[in-house]
């Protein structure tokens, strides 16, 4: 084309390239923020799962405090049992999650020890659901009833 400088149109290409570049930067920023948002949600769920697991432990301790032979009764050879209870938020009835408790009474007679493992699981809500495990060794000897060891996560030695 006559009279048109060869460089015409380079500004448009430059602008497009810059736009693509800023779009990529912007999208990565948005992705980063979205990651932060998901992380904050997961942290909250993790804390809720932990508290659910603790609720399970306290529930088992309370039951064993009332009856050291809970739930089987005296003379029963079964030493290992498990139960699961769900929890709701106050009167609203909204499901918070559940805890699953296993009570190992293998050392009950010999050492006066009961091992409690509780797993808390928040109400399933897609990616933000969480689980937490708590391990407790409980002394059930008369006069010295109480927690001997308390550990978050896996049992000792694992």
């Amino acid at each position, binding site marked *: 084309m006559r009279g048109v400088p060869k460089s015409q149109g380079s500004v448009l290409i430059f602008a497009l390239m810059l736009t693509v570049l800023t779009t990529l930067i*912007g999208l990565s920023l948005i992705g980063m923020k979205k990651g932060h948002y998901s992380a904050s949600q997961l942290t909250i769920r993790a804390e809720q799962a932990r508290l659910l697991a603790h609720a399970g432990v306290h529930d088992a301790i309370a039951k064993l405090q009332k009856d050291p032979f809970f739930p089987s009764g005296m003379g029963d050879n079964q030493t290992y049992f498990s139960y699961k209870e769900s929890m709701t938020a106050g009167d609203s009835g909204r499901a918070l999650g559940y805890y699953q408790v296993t009570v190992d009474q293998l050392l009950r007679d010999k050492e006066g020890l009961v091992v409690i493992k509780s797993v808390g699981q928040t109400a399933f809500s897609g990616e933000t659901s969480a689980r937490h495990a708590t391990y407790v060794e409980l002394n059930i000897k008369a006069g010295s009833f109480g*927690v001997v060891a308390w550990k978050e996560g896996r*049992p000792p030695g694992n």
Partner: protein
Amino acid sequence: MKGRSAFSLLEAILTVFIFSLVLSALAYSLGQLSRVSLARQDFGLELEAVQVTQLVRDDARNATQAELGAGWIQFTGQDLEQPLATRIEQGMTATPSLATVRYEFTEGWLYRTRTDGNGQSQTAPMAELAAFEIEPSGRLATVRFAFSKLNKVEHFEARLKLP
């Protein structure tokens, strides 16, 4: 007639600038959304405070003995790095079965030092704090600490049940 080019350099830069502003505003809004979401559920800095108190409480729960002073607290309890069978074999109250955990506030950091029955110690920083105090009161202890973040200081208090 002289034709005008599609965009001038100034127009192109202006367009890119406006576009960047819109994207930045969107990213900022998402950032604020995550913060608001935390605040709405009574978490925020509180969440970090909960994590610090939970750590101390976990060690307090596992302890059979506690000692404390200004800016430090030490718990002695079962060494949970060892399985129950090993501890029973060694004797549950014998030194090899026990471990001590000491929390100490030094130069703005809360450190946790764990020492096992063989005397081997491991120290790790737990949190950067503005203040940390422990006040005993019978079988309870009040732990007061402060976080300094985003140009503000927030104070927290937690009660521990001592063994």
